[in-house]
């Protein structure tokens, strides 16, 4: 059965590849260090064959500079664990979406002080108003928040402020 989890975290079925997957899966996003690439859904495949070990990542945003660090970290993690002939590729299809972020990852984001994506992705129909569910303040859980800037400290985040506790916070945008 195709579930969100199986699409988001396609862990291989053979034991050798699973072992390598579990090592690569521990690599963290350099910009959001509480999230692993497995939490994000960025790790797409790990395959151990006689020729070597091949991992596939997908970028979150097309121009995200963190991708190169993640690719190097996966390379280092697998090589450090003794794997030979490690190659890491980036693929664009299927396009990454915040829907692939794990529940565990969402909880870790909130405790780190970043509001998790609210709602599901989907290109909206033409219109001048973007329908947006209320974003919950990661500090005081108030829904009385407002967007300060749609583009924040990294491609994936927007800047919000809480009108109750008055603190600014990052929000991981739905993509």
């Amino acid at each position: 059965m195709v579930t969100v989890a199986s699409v988001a975290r396609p862990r291989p079925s053979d034991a050798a590849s699973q072992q390598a997957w579990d090592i690569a899966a521990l690599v963290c996003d350099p910009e959001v260090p509480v999230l692993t690439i497995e939490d994000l859904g960025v790790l797409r495949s790990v395959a151990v064959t006689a020729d070597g070990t091949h991992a596939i990542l997908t970028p979150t945003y097309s121009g995200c500079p963190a991708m190169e660090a993640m690719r190097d970290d996966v390379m280092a993690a697998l090589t450090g664990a003794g794997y030979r002939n490690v190659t890491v590729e980036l693929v664009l299809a299927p396009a990454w979406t915040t829907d692939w972020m794990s529940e565990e990852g969402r909880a870790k984001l909130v405790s780190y002080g970043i509001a998790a994506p609210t709602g599901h992705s989907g290109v909206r129909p033409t219109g001048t108003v973007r329908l947006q569910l209320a974003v919950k303040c990661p500090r005081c859980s108030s829904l009385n928040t407002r967007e300060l800037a749609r583009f924040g400290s990294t491609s994936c985040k927007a800047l919000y402020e809480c009108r109750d506790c008055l603190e600014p916070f990052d929000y991981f945008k739905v993509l």
Partner: protein
Amino acid sequence: MIDHGQADVAADPDAHGHVDVDTVQLSAELVEAASVASHDIAEYALWLGDDSLVLAQHLGWWISRAPELEEDIALGNIALDLIGHARSLLHYAGAESGRTEDDLAYWRDEPEWRSAHLFEQPNGDFAHTIARQFIAAHYLFELYSALMNSTDATLAAIAAKAVKEVDYHRDHSIQWVLRLAQGTEESRRRMITGLSDLWPFLEELFVDEPLIDRLEGIAVRPSSLRALVEAAMSPVLAEAELGVPRGFISSGGGRRGDHSENLGPLLAELQVLARAHPGATW
């Protein structure tokens, strides 16, 4: 060409989405690349990649110069997305002739660029930049929405990725058009001037060059986007109480290498470092 694309999709669905950003691995990959664009597809990828790269280069100028800090960051982020699209497209375009994305970005002279004149237009004041963004993002959104259905799987993958990001760019430009048009007398005056100065360059985006006839099902026919782009922009203009600008239409020619006076200086800045220090890395 259509047969080629479909055959590859059936053989290896993943191969087409492959875009490697590592230039070291990239040169090795060119040898056995699963998806090398035909000459015509490479030319088309160059059109789209050049539009995005030129626009990104313009937008980067605003970092530290925008009206507020959040806008420095917004325009910088938008530029970064566009560079990402340009890299994927130029990487794909270059594979056919054995050139890397950097070869194409830094070592082509002005007549070899394929950007449309809209993207080359100077930043002007902030309202001009927003007017250019408003037109560009609406065009790119409809373009990539349609290109997702291309029979060329690499172009479809790049489009499916880009369209979600361009949706945010479109929203950004809409918010500013409304805010400037409904702000002060001065901001409204500038928004109107910005739109009337940029509007003449809309037409070129809808011109069907002969290349398009050879890429049926692969490329998006530019003329098919006109109604969609206009229909998406018109409610915003109505809400902002702005009329659709009327006036002269630019003769265009960017797709054939005939550029405005604005591209040369932009390329000089974009390319100077790579040309002064060939092969430099940091």
